[in-house]
């Protein structure tokens, strides 16, 4: 069943939804990257919660006009209107008062959501409102979806994605370096407005698939995940889009494969699995890579300190150091230096002395800053400079009886 779902063999509607979720996930991943790089990820939370009163109002208006009230296109139009109002409210509170953006976000999301809940209870008391099924927009639900709705979602996802790809260049520039973008003549506020417009589009299209509470996950998790794998802006957005698209596709497929597997939560959990894997396994920024780096560093410190102790003829009490030295063939298991160990120890002591001289020389300030107690001095200075340093070494002296 899952295999059939993954290969798009579960019927026309499920296929449309899976394609729509993939496109939506891709668009959300790309759009979310710009929010994330501008450290405004949670603005999307306010926007998504602000859709609820719009849904309620749209339903009431459509019923009042004698319509069905459940038309998805109508509901999504309404949601876009209040989402825009919510966004304006956040901007206004942040600009015109001294409230910080997080307070503005929290205020807008709770108040708009509260108003939406009031409208939902109004709708429940209306005669046509009893089976309105508006709560499916809270958590997303693609089961038993109408053909037209599935088409709407697929088309909406495609349109959002195309718009995102067309508009990505100025957004990259602003996200990467606001001052530079402004100097190049870009209107920062306009670009921000475009970004937020795309966030709104993603939110509105995602209402039916993911639900308004979880749509923020699609905008936050993929860019955070992508950031683990690369430091280059032009790759982050693409990678983030791919992660979002794959999460959307797998999530929609799993959800279609069995009952009681709500689409939104499955998509979010799929995305989180990718995130968790990246957190641990990513090269360079991942936790595993950091642990390996740390252990390697620790070993170098131990070996270095052990060698210096050998050179000074001091006993080594740290068992781990002895083990490391023994494994490298530099000492016997009881901590007495081998031939190779004595040579390396002498070199370590010489290096240490050379560093000491180097750090006392004002000319070599930049090189001296690289001193960390382990770096071989040859990697920092040229052989000429090394010779100069060696002239400062104390000459051999007569040993007094």
């Amino acid at each position, binding site marked *: 069943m899952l295999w059939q779902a993954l290969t798009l063999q579960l019927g026309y509607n499920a296929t449309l939804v899976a394609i729509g979720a993939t496109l939506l996930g891709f668009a959300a991943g790309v759009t979310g990257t710009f929010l*994330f790089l501008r*450290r*405004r*990820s*949670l603005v999307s*939370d306010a926007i998504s919660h602000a859709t609820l009163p719009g849904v309620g109002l749209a339903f009431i208006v459509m019923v009042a006009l004698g319509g069905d009230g459940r038309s998805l296109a109508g509901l999504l139009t309404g949601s876009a209107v209040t989402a825009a109002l919510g966004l304006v409210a956040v901007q*206004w*509170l942040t600009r*015109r*008062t*001294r*409230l*910080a953006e*997080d*307070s*503005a*976000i*929290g*205020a807008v*999301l*709770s*108040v*708009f*959501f*509260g*108003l*939406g*809940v*009031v409208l*939902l*209870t*109004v709708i429940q*008391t209306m005669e046509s409102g009893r089976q309105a099924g508006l*709560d499916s927009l*809270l*958590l997303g639900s693609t089961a038993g979806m109408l053909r037209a709705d599935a088409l709407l979602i697929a088309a909406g996802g495609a349109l959002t994605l195309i718009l995102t790809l067309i508009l990505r260049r100025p957004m990259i520039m602003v996200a990467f370096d606001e001052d530079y973008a402004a100097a190049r003549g870009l209107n920062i506020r306009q670009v921000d407005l475009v970004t937020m417009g795309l966030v709104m589009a993603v939110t509105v299209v995602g209402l039916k698939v993911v639900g308004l*509470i*979880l749509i*923020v*996950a699609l905008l*936050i*998790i993929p*860019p*955070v995940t992508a*950031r*683990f794998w690369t430091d280059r802006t032009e790759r982050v957005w693409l990678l983030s889009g791919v992660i979002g698209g794959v999460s959307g596709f797998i999530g929609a497929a799993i959800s279609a494969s069995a009952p*009681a*597997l*709500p689409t*939104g*939560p*499955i998509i*979010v*959990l799929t995305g*989180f699995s990718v*995130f968790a894997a990246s*957190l641990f396994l990513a090269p360079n*920024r991942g*936790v595993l890579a*950091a642990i390996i780096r740390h252990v390697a560093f620790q070993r170098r410190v131990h070996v270095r300190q052990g060698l210096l102790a050998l050179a000074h003829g001091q006993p080594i009490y740290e068992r781990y150091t002895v083990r490391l030295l023994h494994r490298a063939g530099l000492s016997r298991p009881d901590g007495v230096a081998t031939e190779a160990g004595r040579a390396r120890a002498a070199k370590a002591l010489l290096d240490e002395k050379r560093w000491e001289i180097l750090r006392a020389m004002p000319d070599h300030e930049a090189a001296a800053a690289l001193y960390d107690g382990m770096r071989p001095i040859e990697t920092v200075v040229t052989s000429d400079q090394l010779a100069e340093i060696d002239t400062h070494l104390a000459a051999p002296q007569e040993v007094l009886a």
Partner: protein
Amino acid sequence: MSGAEFVPLSLTPILIGVFAAIACALPGNFLVLRRQALIGDAISHVVLPGIVVAFLITGTVSTWPMMIGAAAAALLAVLLIEAIRRLGGIEPGAAMGVVFTTMFAGGVLLLERSDTSTVHLDVEHALMGNLESLIWLDAFGWGSLLDPEALAGLPPELFRMGLSMIGVIAFVWLFWRPLKISTFDEGFAQVMGMRTNLIGMSLVAVSALAAVAAFDAVGSIIVIAMFICPPAAARLMTNRLAAQVGWSVIFATLSAVLGYVLAGYGPLWLGAEDSVSAAGMIATVSGIVLGLAAVFGPARGGTQG
């Protein structure tokens, strides 16, 4: 509205609403100043999986296991956010977004997969609360306030919420000075020998406690709204912290009372027959209060007023 109708049907919900509002608004003052305002939002999302897991373990919808489950989930969320922030070097907002959406998604999935059809446990209830149902059936009028038999029938949420509010008030009162100093000047607080990390953590813990207690009684919308709207509005009224806390309590009380009354009686005045969601209305009223403060508040623009 007479006492015979008001006392059993509206007095206890209003009191519980006011207690919840104050318990959330008090720590909210510091969270807003510390730019951690969205912690209330995150906590109220993550308690869902905690409650569902508690239900799956105990098999019943009873208060204490669920409160413990919710508190455990809140704690787990705080630890996860901190771990992801440190391990991954991710900004706090995004780390929070990752954690609370994932935990909420997990909660919804668990709820859908388990058989909860026989009990009253669903997402909408968790979000919207059920303030209207916390009525005092044993009361017959104002005289019942002195009748021990009737008092025994008060909804238990009233005592829990009252206790939580007293606990929060005690915390803010006892630790006023360290809270104030570490909020405004963390470096100075450290020089004074205060353990600012500990203060920050206990503030989050107290907020979580208030959120979980309030969540149980009134649902998460009120929690999020009360953590932010009254303190934010109060911040636009004054430059002094003590005055700000005072204003926030006034605004929280006003929102709770006015919101409940508008939700319960407003539609009747407009000629409709059924009331609307009290939780939603309370959040809406707090938003209107904030809007008015943002337009007319004497200290809305900055320190110059």
